[in-house]
């Protein structure tokens, strides 16, 4: 990554003679890569995406951003980096992976309209919102792009769509036509979808702490209570006026100023020395889990430990309200290494965060695992099939009211014997997929791919390798006996 903070496009950096590269470190995309304005622009782009009825329905049904936003952010970031990277082979492979991933998402929304994540028009809209938000973030922060830079950037985003879709015919050829296309979609297609509302009003109010700050829930909740509504207001104010009108979004006095101030402040980061801001390291830091063997992890773990102890002391020092008051909370989570059925349901099973367990939740697990392991066909399909079989098993065993999905109550009532044959099969397929060299054991490298950490010292490893039966039994005890076993937590439970 070259630099993100120098040469914001408004200064008109001269491009080398000839055709500027569409991908790689010299592209406009890379010039913005580490720009903190992206944080705001990405939220805006995501709302615009989600306001598209097709995309909104797909997001609500399938996306894990509500329950696991940090993991999702990291995956998106890595994927974008591959797509805009130098290496055409990596780009092709990532595009194929994204296509396979999206091909598995289709269904119908609450009003019975069908959606399909492979829909070409919808995918063009996603790219359009990214491009438009990049342009808009420069306008809002008072450093508008000149025409040449804008055209160059437009060409890059069209190339991105072409890499994904084969061609970019869904987006207009010329930038002039693009603005007409964009306005038309905003005015005619966008709706006040559930997904857009969720992002604007629920996501930031319920944003779970990243693994790093998990130990300070009070601190996190306090900060979130302030920042959440502000982010919501900033995002609403930054949306195109026609959409705000159509969706009935509130106009708050001062929100425009607040929004522009926020963009301006984020834009000031260009005066920071080179290398101070690096989106990659920020995201790595956010998804760093304290158990990992990353050199920074020790510092992080120490910091986290200190915060955890501080909040424990705070809780212990808080006077008890009424000594005689009966304890209303059920005795959940009493043990250190067990978690309550409810916690497990929300942290692990309900990946999409809609309060129900259905196929998209398990598909999201399969998606996360195959992303981590960087699976190709046919291993990927095998993993999805194993999860699908497990879903049928769960549905048969737990869906007592027959609505096709499993609610938290149904799950808790069954206090389930989840370790059926299908779950064992999932564990075995996962083991085979992780064991890339087919040696029958998972070595340190393979372990790192799956868990992003070295072997945990509690793990029953023999001779530096992790055997099949130990792997399967650990996976089963994580999935069924609800033990919090450290190695599996970062895999599916971390936000």
């Amino acid at each position, binding site marked *: 990554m070259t630099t993100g903070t120098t040469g914001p496009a408004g200064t008109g950096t001269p491009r080398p003679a000839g055709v500027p590269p569409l991908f790689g470190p010299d592209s406009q995309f890379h010039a913005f890569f580490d720009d903190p304005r992206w944080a705001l622009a990405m939220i805006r782009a995501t709302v615009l995406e989600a306001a598209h009825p097709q995309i909104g329905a797909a997001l609500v049904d399938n996306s894990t951003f509500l329950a696991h936003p940090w993991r999702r952010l990291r995956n998106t970031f890595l994927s974008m980096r591959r797509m805009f990277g130098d290496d055409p082979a990596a780009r092709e492979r990532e595009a194929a992976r994204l296509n396979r991933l999206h091909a598995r998402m289709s269904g119908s929304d609450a009003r019975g309209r069908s959606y399909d994540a492979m829909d070409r028009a919808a995918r063009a809209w996603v790219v359009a919102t990214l491009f438009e938000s990049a342009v808009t973030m420069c306008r809002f922060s008072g450093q508008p792009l000149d025409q040449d830079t804008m055209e160059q950037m437009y060409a890059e985003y069209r190339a991105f769509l072409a890499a994904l879709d084969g061609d970019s015919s869904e987006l207009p050829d010329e930038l002039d036509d693009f603005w007409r296309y964009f306005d038309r979609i905003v005015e005619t297609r966008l709706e006040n979808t559930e997904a857009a509302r969720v992002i604007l009003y629920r996501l930031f109010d319920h944003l779970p702490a990243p693994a790093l700050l998990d130990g300070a829930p009070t601190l996190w909740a306090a900060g979130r209570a302030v920042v959440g509504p502000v982010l919501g207001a900033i995002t609403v104010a930054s949306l195109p006026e026609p959409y705000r009108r159509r969706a009935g979004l509130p106009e708050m006095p001062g929100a425009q100023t607040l929004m522009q101030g926020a963009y301006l402040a984020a834009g000031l980061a260009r005066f920071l020395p080179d290398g101070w801001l690096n989106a990659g390291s920020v995201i790595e830091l956010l998804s760093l889990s304290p158990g990992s063997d990353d050199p920074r992890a020790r510092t992080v773990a120490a910091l986290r430990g200190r915060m955890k*102890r501080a909040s*424990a*002391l705070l*809780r212990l*020092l808080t006077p008890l309200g009424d*000594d005689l008051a009966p304890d209303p909370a059920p*005795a959940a989570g*009493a*043990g250190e290494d067990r978690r309550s059925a409810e916690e497990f349901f929300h942290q692990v099973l309900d990946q999409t965060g809609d309060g129900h367990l259905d196929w998209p939740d398990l598909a999201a697990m399969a998606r996360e695992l195959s992303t981590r392991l960087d699976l190709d066909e046919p291993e990927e399909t095998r993993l999805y099939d194993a999860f699908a079989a497990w879903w049928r098993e769960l549905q048969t065993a737990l869906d007592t009211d027959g609505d096709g999905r499993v609610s938290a109550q149904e799950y808790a009532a069954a206090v389930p014997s989840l370790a059926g044959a299908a779950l064992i099969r999932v564990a075995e397929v996962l083991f085979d997929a992780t064991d890339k060299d087919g040696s029958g054991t998972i070595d340190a490298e393979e372990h790192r791919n799956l868990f992003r950490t070295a072997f945990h010292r509690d793990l029953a490893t023999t001779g530096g390798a992790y055997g099949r039966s*130990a792997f399967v039994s650990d996976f089963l005890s994580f999935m069924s006996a609800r033990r919090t076993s450290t190695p599996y937590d970062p895999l599916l439970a971390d936000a």
Partner: protein
Amino acid sequence: MTEYDVPGGRSATEGLPGRERRSDGAARAVPRHVACVMDGNGRWAQRRSLPRTAGHQAAEATVIDIIEAARSAGVEWLSLYAFSTENWNRPGAEVDYLMRLVRRVVRKHAPLLLARGIRCRFTGAADPRIPHGLARDFDDLAMLTGDNRGMTLTVAFDHGGRRDIVEATRALILSGTPADEVTERLFAEYLPFPDTPDVDLVIRTSGEQRISNFMLWKVAYSEWVFPEVLWPDFRASDFLACLHAYQRRARRFGGLPSQTNGDPR
């Protein structure tokens, strides 16, 4: 109060001057791991015509006293048997009261324990009947003092020695260990807090002479003393007297040459 200094006839070395049995001739060290069965609170209250709960309340002062005495005497591990799995059978109101009392004690003394460098842990404490708030306080205190390097205080709350063994067995079976690999040492690793050494000295107050399902695995080679004093009357001086009684005994670990607990066996 010296009637329990040499608890009648229970010591294998009764009548022999302890020092002469030691090959190195040095004074016996302070026990590394001392466990207390805090018995006699109810009787203490009954003798004063107070409700049983008053006895539990009076026990608080002793607990704090003994923790401080053990720490300054150089005991590295102190275990207190606070509440057994069988105690759930007591009248509901008393159990309720106990839970609230323990919660108050934990919260009241948390800063002190932290300041004294005492690491606190709780075994058992897994029963769903334990109130949620208390369980969280246990977790918080354990987390708060987890890095302390001073004495380790293990509070056996809702503890049952047999249950620990059964659960260790279950974990051992689940881990798929082949039968011929199971040794005492391996088994001990599956017990709660495997880093805790064997108990050297158990003090059971109020003259009761029973084990009552307490840390069964870890007391295998313990010395026991049974002072007649009821727990609320037990004081630092009594605790030190028990340590002296221990130091006068020679421990043989079932016929092996004398050895300090903690050495590899």
